[in-house]
């Protein structure tokens, strides 16, 4: 089934699997950060609002590649220090963990704005209705607001996920053996850069198409019961 490609076919398949794992774990971290960021930005507390605003502004203003490098090379001393406290020698972030943190951080900063938009788009009356029914604050958020936010935020999050999936290629710079890194290794051995980078490009295209199809069905499911407005 797997094309041979000078014996590098299996390595590219393994790289694809690594890319998928990285994208999904960064997505999980990013969704949590984005939701926290949006809550902070819409909070009644000025300190939290400032914190959320600073997070999304600074992270969005600096290149993703710089975050990947900063988190991988910049935290060496810090992580080793933490390791010494717990008696672990030479503790270090693996490229996978560093990549997840960096890409999750960037995804979260953009997701903050998406979630905030969704949060503000939910009619005030829904929260008031919840209060009138005697629901607690936490309950209103979990049962009323969050499920509705999902539908509104989904198209925006889908776009961000496409961007995230392409940004996983950046983690090859710190040596994670995903699609790009394995292609580069194959190029060094085969001396055929064009062949392998075209194959890599088509793997990414395939992943994008799969993600787009997935988003279509998620959006269809989330939007059930809502007439789609024709613009």
């Amino acid at each position: 089934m797997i094309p041979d490609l000078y014996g590098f076919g299996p390595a590219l398949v393994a790289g694809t699997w690594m890319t998928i794992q990285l994208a999904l774990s960064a997505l999980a971290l990013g969704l949590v950060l984005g939701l926290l960021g949006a809550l902070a930005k819409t909070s009644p507390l000025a300190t939290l609002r400032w914190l959320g605003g600073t997070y999304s502004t600074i992270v969005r203003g600096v290149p993703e590649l710089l975050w990947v490098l900063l988190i991988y090379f910049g935290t060496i001393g810090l992580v080793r220090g933490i390791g010494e406290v717990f008696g672990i020698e030479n503790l270090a972030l693996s490229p996978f963990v560093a990549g997840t943190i960096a890409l999750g951080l960037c995804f979260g900063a953009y997701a903050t704005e998406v979630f905030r938009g969704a949060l503000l788009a939910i009619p005030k009356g829904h929260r008031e209705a919840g209060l009138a029914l005697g629901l607690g604050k936490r309950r209103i958020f979990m049962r009323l607001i969050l499920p509705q936010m999902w539908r509104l935020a989904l198209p925006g999050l889908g776009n961000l996920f496409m961007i995230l999936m392409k940004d996983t290629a950046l983690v090859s710079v710190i040596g994670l053996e995903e699609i790009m890194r394995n292609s580069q290794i194959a190029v060094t051995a085969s001396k055929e850069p064009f062949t392998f980078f075209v194959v890599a490009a088509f793997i990414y295209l395939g992943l994008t198409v799969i993600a787009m199809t997935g988003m279509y069905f998620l959006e269809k499911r989330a939007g059930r019961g809502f007439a789609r407005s024709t613009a």
Partner: protein
Amino acid sequence: MSWDLFIKWLPDFLEGAWVTLQLVGASVIAGLILALPLGIARSSRVLAVRALPYAYIFFFRGTPLLVQLFLVYYGMAQFEAVRDSWLWPFLREPYWCAIITMTMHTAAYIAEIIRGAIQNVPAGEVEAARALGMSRRQALWHIILPRAARIGLPAYSNEVILMLKASALASTVTLLELTGMARTIIARTYLPVEIFFAAGMFYLVMAYVLVRGFKLLERWLRVDACQGR
């Protein structure tokens, strides 16, 4: 971060930032020129005219910029025909490879912005132009494009900021722009946190200046006055 360290390396940072600005400036301007026919063809009613720009946009938006950059910088050298052609003096240089790749990449995104803007020009205004006796071409030049430019400008300014950040990838093909320069300085000082932090500050300042500049441009073109139909 100690200031004397920062001041010592300031000339290198500024040199890197200047290369970054050249990359971004060249690619967003050349990208806009390339995107105009692409975007217009993309919003055509004829399927055959629409198909080619669609395939171009699909490829460049569906693959990472890093892959595209490696395809141009490393990939082109695989073919002897390319190495013998007049293009080789350009494709040998990381600087030109970065500009070529970023231009083709951003053109795909700008073409989509142009398509969206053209399709959002109110149909009544186009009909009014035609009713006044303008030809299709005249309506395109005098009504649709000026109107679409104002509709698309905010999205275009976003794209410019995204390209500013994307230009950091040029450091992977040995180009010494801001990120590449930061990595070189770190190789000599072993101070990754401080130097990357300083580089990040440079990007933030550049992004801020660009955002301000586009706000001024929007005011000058009276973009908000066009929003109310």
